[in-house]
């Protein structure tokens, strides 16, 4: 077993080296802006850039609205399927996996052709409409993760009993979903939400092809024109991703583990 442990440590060390060297190099590079000494100049320049602030704000707002769309779409659907239409679940699961098969660039290409200004549904004719289409696009990208998270959350609660108890007290469907089901799967929903945020915040393809001033295209633009700022932005982006994943990890500790309903 001693030899086995040696190989395990070696594998782990090699893996750690591959992953940490680029991170260290990026951090080091981002501090090199001032000649001859380390400084936070690159960060100061980036954070002080008006376009950074604008695009970051724009992407944050879009990400939050995407999460709202995702929750409104996924929670009632997953709930209803569990309650009333379990036989349709394979179909819905297959659809939620489609965004992993169809590349994002193809989806957005389809939008551009289908919803152009001359089409029956001219979303792309107005700025608001384009923003809406971008959010919809992001919601499809996040769909596989959101659906999985919520469906796993629903598995841990007794949907049927909760629904009947609420109905006995005269609750309607909106009340049941908003005040009974959603609070019960809140942790799962939040996990899905933070993952969505991590995916959406720096997304490049859709935002760029829809010509919206999002964070991803801004990153690309800086990368093509500057030397040290991109490294600082990479460090910031890594920190954001790390933050989202840490929140998910912390949340998972509060998630109910036991299922009182066998299905």
């Amino acid at each position, binding site marked *: *077993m001693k030899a*086995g442990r040696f*190989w*395990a*440590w070696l*594998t*782990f060390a090699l*893996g750690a080296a*591959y992953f940490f*060297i*680029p991170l260290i*190099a*990026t951090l080091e*590079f981002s501090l090199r802006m001032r000649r001859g000494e380390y400084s936070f100049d690159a960060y100061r320049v980036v954070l002080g850039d008006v376009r950074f602030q604008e695009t970051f704000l724009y992407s944050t707002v879009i990400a939050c609205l995407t999460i709202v769309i995702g929750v409104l*779409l*996924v929670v*009632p*659907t997953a709930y209803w399927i569990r309650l*009333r239409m*379990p036989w349709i679940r394979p179909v*819905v699961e297959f*659809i939620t996996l*489609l965004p*992993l*098969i*169809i*590349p*994002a*660039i*193809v*989806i957005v*290409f*389809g*939008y*551009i*052709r289908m919803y152009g200004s001359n089409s029956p549904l001219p979303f792309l004719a107005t700025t608001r409409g384009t923003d809406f289409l971008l959010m919809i*696009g992001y919601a*499809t990208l996040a769909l596989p993760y959101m659906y999985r998270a919520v469906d796993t959350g629903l598995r841990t609660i007794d949907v049927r*009993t909760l629904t*009947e108890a609420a109905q006995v007290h005269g609750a309607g469907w909106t009340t049941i979903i908003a005040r009974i089901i959603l609070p019960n799967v809140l942790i799962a929903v939040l996990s899905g939400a933070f993952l969505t945020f*991590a*995916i959406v915040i*720096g997304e*490049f*393809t859709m935002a760029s*092809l829809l010509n919206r001033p999002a964070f*991803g295209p801004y*990153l*690309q633009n800086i*990368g*093509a024109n500057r030397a040290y700022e*991109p490294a600082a*932005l*990479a460090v910031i*982006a*890594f920190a954001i991703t790390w933050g989202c*994943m840490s929140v*998910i*990890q912390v949340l998972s500790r509060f998630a109910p583990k036991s299922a009182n*309903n066998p299905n």
Partner: protein
Amino acid sequence: MSETTYPDPAAARQAVPPARAEGMRLPLHWLGVAPFFIFALMFLILPTFYLVVGAFQNDQGEFTLANMAALFQPSILAAYWISIRISLASAVLGALAGLAIAVAIVRGGLPKWVRSTTMTFSGVASNFAGVPLAFAFLATLGRLGLVTVLLRTWFDINIYALGFNILSFAGLTLTYLFFQIPLMVVIITPAIDGLKKEWGEAAATLGATQFQYWRMVVIPVLWPSFLGTVILLFANAFGAIATAYALTGSSLNIVPILLYAQIRGDVLHNPHLGYALAFGMIFVTGLANIFYIWFRVRSERWLK
């Protein structure tokens, strides 16, 4: 829609859909899933369908295979070929490295913190893609990157003089591994956990050596999920564009970058050829995923 009957709890536990159990009535329960299906149809299925149909039409809207045939011109074939090579290389290498790391942290007798740290980090790194990843690798292996500079000053090795270039097949593959390996770790670790201890004990009781146990038990059981994940990683790399675009601009002609240029400015001078390009991408990833589903079904038999 209100239900005032009180079905007994035992009946409620059975997975009988009430709409069926109550016999014929208006299919109102479809209203509950209608928003989802309308969304999927409008923003996922129809836009894709639109491109697929367009790929088989000419400017007059008549059926044609000319666009498909046009895909086989050398420049487009080369784009598909390099895309497939990069995706395959990063998928296979990523899967092997990820498997090695997963086996090490699950079976290697390492302390507990190693496993939890690796899993957390893998969750982060598998989502750290796109433009920032390109920046990180430019800062590492670009012409002024830390590793490039250190290799030159410490060991007098100039990797660029030796033919390495971050804007190349090797460079892009190395970069993609940064999200491919962690994705493999995240997916395959549960499968390795699913290897039952009893199987190892049973094999040992029957006199199997460690090598025989691996060759005749572990590898056959893990094979479908391994292969399935390779395919998922392949599709993952094949559709990715942001990293490559930020890294190489349009100097490396992979399919997503070609399609991006086509959408922006009709560089192929034929809109329907653009549709065909998109159809080709769906065809490749779709084919890969059909294999994936097939292997998944086979592997889940063992992981119950």
